[in-house]
Structure formats: C-alpha cells, structure tokens
C-alpha cells in the first residue's frame, strides 16, 4: 500500500481526511479534473496548481493509443511527461472501450475491441490494463471491471458483478508496483442492493488501498444513485478512501460527501465550459445567453479566481464557443469553483460546520435563482413566491429530487438510519 488515509474530522458519515499519496498530500473530499490525454483543456500545469488541483485523472485507453504507454514509461512516467508534480490517477481503460466503441465485446478473458487506429481486433485483459497503468505510473490505478449500463436489468448485472470480482484477483496478481502505486477495487452490482452487498464484501476481503463505487452516473435516476452510494459507503472500511466514479455535479458531490464519500471525477466542469456554461453558487450561468452580451459583472462576483477578478460576463460571452481563449478562461473558472467546493467541504466538516455549509450551499442556489430568473431558465415565475417555503423542491429541478434531499437531510441529523 502506497498511501496513508487519516480521517481528521467527521460529521456523522461525512469525513474530512488527509490522503497522502506518493506525489502529493491531498485533502478530502476532493474533486479530480479529467486530463484525458495528459493535459487539461488548454490549462498549463502551473495554472492547475494555482487553482488547487490535487489529483488529475488520465485515461489509460487514450494514453495507450497516443503517445502509447511504452513511450510514457520510457520517458519516465506521466508525471514527468506532462510535468505535473502532484498526484495522478488512471482509469482501467475499460469504460472508454465500452462507451466509445460500438464493437467492444466482453468475455471472461477481457474486453475485445477493434483498434480505432488500424481496425485490428485487440484485447484488453485485466493484466494488460494493469501493465499499461504500471507504465503510466499514476499514484492511484483502477482495476479493470466489467462495466454495464445502470439502465440495463437482468442477469447481465449479476454476471458483470461476479466477473468484476474474478478480475480484481487477476489485477492484484498483475500489479507490479504496489509500493508506489495504489490499486483501487471497484464495487459493481448495478442498482441491486443484494448484488452490491456481495461485491462490497468481496472487495473489502481483498484489503485494497482504496475503493471506488462504479457503475453509477450513467443515466440512472437520482434516487437509485443515492441509495447505492449510501449502501456502499456504509459498508466500506472507515480507514480507506472512497471514490465515486464519474460524479461531477456540485450538488451530487455535496450529497455524496454527506454520505461519506471522499473522491470524485468528471469531465463536466471542463466540458460544460467549452459549451459556454459557468459553474456558480446558484447552479449554472449560461454565458452564451444573450442576456450576457452587455453584462459587465464578473461571472461570479463572490469568486476570487483569476477570471472573475479580471473579466466581465460580456467579454466572456463574446469569446465562448468562438475563440480558444473563451473556453480556457471558463475552464479555469469552473475548475476553480470545483476546487473551492472541495476545500469548503473539507474545512466545514473539519470545523464541525458541515450542516451550515450544506444549508448555505442550497440557499445560495435558491436565492440567486430567484434574483436572476431571466438567466436561469429552470424556474417559472409562479415558483418565486414559494421559493423560501418549498426550496427543497426547486433548488435545481433538473437534478434534485425530494428523495435525495430527504436523504441529505437525514444524513445531517444525528444517528441516520440506512
């Protein structure tokens, strides 16, 4: 095991911890931006440090295609290659194959797919995935799992869960650098609590450095999503980091943290920036909207980032989706927002002010929603009057359901029952 995980503070199930990895001492909860091909959309590594990024995620599948993991290994690993002094995490490569390639086929041996380079059939086995990740050299590497869409039902879910358990043993066996790289196991089992429980027990038995909750954030309804997260965090060991894969909406991160998760990753903040959307305490601000054309305020007047200190919505509006600099500046702001959210979660848990933080987080959404109704298109004017009384229902109608908030509410009270 090449990490230390010390819980520094708790609030019920939520925890603030220090995660010491070979390349960086991180504070959790934390969000990991996705740098698919060894870079995060136009941002220089010193900017990422300035923003406060602690761990960057690299995609094994993409790196294996270009520049190849052999080359990265030969040149001293990904840290050296991209000149990133802090921590890195790589995924197994399996998810990309299943999600990006039509012709991927999963057998007991591994994932068979056609190479996008020359069309030849190729096979990614658990052993191969770990070998690639050993070559890349990230602080945290992920086991190859059998990924199925959460919207699929039936025996395929069960098959995938058991296969994931069989594959974890092959991954552990293939892992050549346990002293410098931490192999995380991934809990599968779809939305079925019984399957999830079997997988949880199996993974915990393997005593891995950390665990991920996989197979979520794939289009399932939010109530099911929270239940799985709550079940998994309740059963995973207290002294190991817990990573919810593919989660990146700020509200989801707050709720998962309340449920005791520690790490998150998603392309959302940088992808949405490229489409002209900024993350703000109220939710999102669409810079492409005509209302921004003459708005001389910063994206978020309360934000201390380089972009908000210097640029108006009007200026960003003129650049987004047109000029490279527009998406660079918005990506910078959005990642800054995510890092600040991570820091606020950590410090509020540490200082026993987690419920206050969560309430303020939700209230901010409500307040700004009502003040800038023209910009935030989710609400109809009839809701404004009721905003304060029924805020649980309207915080963000696109992503929040009453069930989640009940769950959140429960987790903020003593002795939650799950």
């Amino acid at each position: 095991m090449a990490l230390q995980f010390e819980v520094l503070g708790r609030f019920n199930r939520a925890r603030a911890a220090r995660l010491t990895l070979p390349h960086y001492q991180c504070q959790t909860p934390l969000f990991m931006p996705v740098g698919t091909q060894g870079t995060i959309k136009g941002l220089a590594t010193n900017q990422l440090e300035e923003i406060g990024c602690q761990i960057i995620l690299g995609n094994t599948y993409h790196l294996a295609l270009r520049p190849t993991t052999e080359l990265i290994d030969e040149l001293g690993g990904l840290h050296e290659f991209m000149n990133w002094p802090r921590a890195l995490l790589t995924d197994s490569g399996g998810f990309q194959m299943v999600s990006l390639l039509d012709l991927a086929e999963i057998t007991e041996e591994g994932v068979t797919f056609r190479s996008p380079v020359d069309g030849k059939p190729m096979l990614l086995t658990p052993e191969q995935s770990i070998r690639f990740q050993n070559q890349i050299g990230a602080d945290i590497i992920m086991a190859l799992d059998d990924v199925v869409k959460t919207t699929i039902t039936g025996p395929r879910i069960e098959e995938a869960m058991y296969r994931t358990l069989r594959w974890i043993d092959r991954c552990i066996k293939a892992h050549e650098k346990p002293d410098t790289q931490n192999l995380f196991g991934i809990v599968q089992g779809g939305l079925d609590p019984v399957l999830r429980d079997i997988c949880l027990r199996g993974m915990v038995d393997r005593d891995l450095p950390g665990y991920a909750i996989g197979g979520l954030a794939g289009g399932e309804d939010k109530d099911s999503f929270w239940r799985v997260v709550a079940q998994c965090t309740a059963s995973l060991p207290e002294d190991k980091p817990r990573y919810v894969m593919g989660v990146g909406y700020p509200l989801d991160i707050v709720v998962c943290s309340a449920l005791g998760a520690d790490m998150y990753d998603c392309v959302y903040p940088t992808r949405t920036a490229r489409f002209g959307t900024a993350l703000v305490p109220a939710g999102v601000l669409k810079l492409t909207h005509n209302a921004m054309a003459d708005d001389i305020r910063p994206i978020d007047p309360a934000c201390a980032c380089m972009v908000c200190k210097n640029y108006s919505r009007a200026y960003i509006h003129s650049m987004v989706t047109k000029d490279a600099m527009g998406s660079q500046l918005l990506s910078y702001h959005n990642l800054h927002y995510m890092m600040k959210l991570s820091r606020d979660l950590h410090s509020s848990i540490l200082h026993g002010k987690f419920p206050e933080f969560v309430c303020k987080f939700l209230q901010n959404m409500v307040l700004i929603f009502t003040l800038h109704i023209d910009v935030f298109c989710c609400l109809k004017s009839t809701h404004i009057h009721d905003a304060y009384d029924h805020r649980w229902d309207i915080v963000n109608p696109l992503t929040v359901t009453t069930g989640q908030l009940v769950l959140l509410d429960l987790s903020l009270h003593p002795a939650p029952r799950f």
Partner: protein
Amino acid sequence: MKFVVDAWSKGGGRAGVLQVGSCPALIETPALLLSTRKALPNFIPPDLLRSLPSPDSRLLQFSPLHFLEGPSANTISDIGGVRSLVSLHEFGFAAIPRDSTAILPEFDCTNKLGASFNTPSGRHLLKPAEYMRMLAAMKPDIWASLSDEVPSRATDKRNKLSVDRTVKWLDECIALSPPGTAGFGAIVGGWDALERQRCAQEVAKRNVSGYWIGGFGLEETSDQITSQLLRVVVENLPEEKPRLVSGLGLPEEVLRGVAQGIDLFDSAYIHQLTTGGFALTFPFEAAKRHSISDGMSDGTKINLRADVYRKDTSPIMKSCHCYTCMNHTKAYINHLLNVREMLAQTLLEIHNTYHYLGFFQFIRRVVKEGRFQEFHQEFIETRRGHSRVVPADDVCA
C-alpha cells in the same frame, strides 16, 4: 504618447524609446507588437502573458473589428475601454483595422464610403466615422487611420484611388480623433513607388503622432520591392515620429524594415508558426547559426509535429528561459499536437513570442552598437547558405 530616437546605426536602423498612454514602462524600439484576438493573445492566458519579458511584451495590437462579435462599443466604453476589458492595465494597445489573420481588407468591395473587410462574422464595410466611434469607446493608446489597402495586382488607377481615399479618410479620422489617443496616419500606394511617395508626402503634412505603413503581407512579396517602397516612404517622413508597419513578419522582413528605419512591427508571423506547430529556434548570434543544421530545421524553426521529436525529452531550446522551455519537452508538445490538444498552441505561442522578443532585443543591441548593417548582411547570407543545404522535401519548408 512620447517617442524619442536615441541611436542610429551605420547603414540603416534606428533605436528609440516609446511611451504610450497608461503603460508606465518605456518600450524600446525597434519593437514587436503582440498580435491578439479581442485584445488577448490567441492562446496565452493573461497570467502566463505576464511571464513574458517586460516591458518588451507590453505592446498589444488588436483590430476593433474583432468586436463585431461583441461586446458592443457601449459596453466596452462602460467597462472603461479595451485595457479594462481585458484587465491588462500596464499594457499599451494599438488599434489597427486589419489583423493579418482573420480580418483582412477586401479591396474589391471597398468604395468611397468606407473600407471593406472580410471578418469571421462576414464582410463588413467600415466607414471612417464608425471606426472612430469604435475607437472612442475602446480608447487604444495608438490607432492607425482607416486605409484602402490594395494588393500588388491592383491596377494603377485603383492604386491611385486607394491613395486618394486613404488621405481623405485620414482627415476624417483626425477630425474625430478621441482625446488622449495617438493617431498614426496610414500610408498605402501598393507597389508603385511614386504613389507611395505621394501618399507619404500627403500624410506627412497632417497632424499625426506617427505613421502606419500598410499594403504588405496581403499577397505575394518581393524582398527588393519591399525595401525600395519602405525607403521611398521613410524618406518622406519626419525623423521624430514612430513608424509602424503591418504584414512584415519573417526575420528577414523585420531586418529589412529596420534597415529602412521602421520602429514598430505587427504581423501574423508568430500566430502562423504557432498554429502550424512550429517553434522558433534560430540563434541570434551569427557564430552559433552555422552549427544547427540537423536536417529537421530550415535554420529558423522546427516542426514539432515531426516524428523525430516523439521521444525527445529536451526543451525546444536548452538556452531558452521561457515558461515552455523551463517546463516542457519537445516530446510532450509533439504529443499535444498529435492529439490536437489546445495546450500545444499555448506553449508554442509562449515560446515563439519569447524568442522573437529576444530577436528584437538583439536587433536593438546591434543598432545601438552601430553594427546593424554587418549583422543584417551576415544574417541574410547565412540564411541563404542554409537554404541551399536544406533538402526540398524538408518538413519545415
């Protein structure tokens, strides 16, 4: 704006000092204007822009026509002008209608009312009064008057017309000149030395702070004719005012301009190198220049897309102190180019700008030391020698 010439080199070349608007630093000339898109460099974010040498990098060029895509002139005015818009308070800004990349004059559509430009948001006929309203809102330190630029292939009649219009528009621009800004009179005249002379003489009679020389870098170029035209223009201009030329960007072109007494250069050269995946690598000193022929270079630049850099863990230039060379390898930039990641352009624009600013610094030094002519001649000769040994299928051709 203040400008003083303080050194002349034997055989051409002058060095001076320029101070503009609220940019407190004195900018030494000959100087390079950094090209921008909406007043920020194309790919260098503002925090890294400050890592470039100061005050050398403090003069930015922009086209008011960039802002056809917004923000509106009123909004820019409310924000406090272009300097506040991009929050680069210690920088100087020069407004020039064309930008040599995305905003180019379309002389066939220009008429007596105004100059026509092709822009990313379509063709635009810019009239003098509209242009000056834009400038009043944007408040650049320096602006070039509206001109009717024509390429070398324009007929004599059309060329003559372009001079007439440009001089007429200059008077209209001067009449509407925003307070506190320095207007540079535009000089055109195509490839006709007599028309160039006529235009320069007319503009020299006007009350302007400096001169902008247009008509270059639009289509084909000729080294000899460029020098001749610049000579004719400069001969007819007063010594004490700065001369800015657009469209001369190659090292040889810059040296040719300096030799004729040009002080300020604005071109798309760095932008074109950067988007093409090239990095400048030429040493300024002659002695070093002979030794770098490795077959992958034309002696000026390298193509980082080339496979040979796949495993090259050295920086673009070991001796370079730019952010890119201090932090990244050729192998990494090669990878970023291969996977079409935007950071490649950011890193290349930083290096190329840094390197070219160094070239200008070196030019100023040799001018002050009185050995510009030697340097110029020797530079051209080694380049000629070099182009003979470079194979025809060179990746950098």
